[in-house]
């Protein structure tokens, strides 16, 4: 049995409680739900950020996340998985990304969510542009994100 997977790439906000309920409400087989919310910070390296604008590659963004979602559901015993990634202009305090994993036990739910976020950051075709007092600039990829992905590679 494969877990139901929901992937949405959208401009609008999402409701975390509603997404948790969609995976666990009315079920007695789910023992653990882990959520990760990525939120737009108001500062970066000491500079105030006015907003982030997320560009994405329509079609590939969903396809790429689906490939990793399939790997996740084959590696961990999940009962449900939801990934929502927003695009467009997002101001500090607003949601950017959501991963929800449901499983019988917490370890699978934690690990699956962590794995997905590590891959999302380095492989999903999204690009952030920051707006600050200095103007607009593209966010540079971080080496520590690549290192985070590498730890999931099987020896």
């Amino acid at each position, binding site marked *: 049995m494969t877990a139901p997977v929901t992937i949405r790439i959208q401009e609008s906000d999402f409701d975390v409680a509603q997404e948790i309920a969609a995976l666990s409400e009315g079920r007695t087989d789910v023992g653990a739900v882990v959520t990760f919310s990525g939120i737009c910070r108001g500062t970066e390296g000491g500079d105030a950020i006015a907003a982030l604008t997320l560009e994405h590659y329509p079609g590939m963004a969903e396809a790429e996340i689906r490939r990793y979602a399939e790997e996740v559901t084959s590696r961990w015993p999940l009962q449900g998985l939801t990934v929502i990634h927003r695009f467009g202009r997002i101001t500090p305090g607003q949601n950017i990304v959501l991963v929800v994993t449901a499983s019988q036990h917490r370890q699978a739910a934690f690990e699956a969510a962590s794995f997905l976020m590590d891959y999302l950051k380095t492989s999903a075709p999204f*690009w952030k542009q920051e707006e600050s007092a200095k103007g607009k600039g593209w966010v540079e990829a971080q080496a520590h994100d690549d290192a985070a992905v590498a730890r999931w590679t099987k020896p």
Partner: protein
Amino acid sequence: MKVKYFAWVRERIGKAEEIIEPPEGVRTVDDLIAWLSARDETYAYAFEKRRVIRAAIDHAHVKPEAAIAGAREIAFFPPMTGG
């Protein structure tokens, strides 16, 4: 084939997508970057940091040595910064 550009690659080239017809000798993603870069300065500027440019063929990541034969859509972009 259709080519798409994203983020600062798109900004440097000055367009989001275009239809191109590379000659037969252009066989790999790397060949295509070299061919585009030779076209004019905007492409050369977009692809100047060649090692950081990522590519996808038909919505899947590929390496520079990947063959482009049969590709419907090729995309070029900087390292991803989503999540």
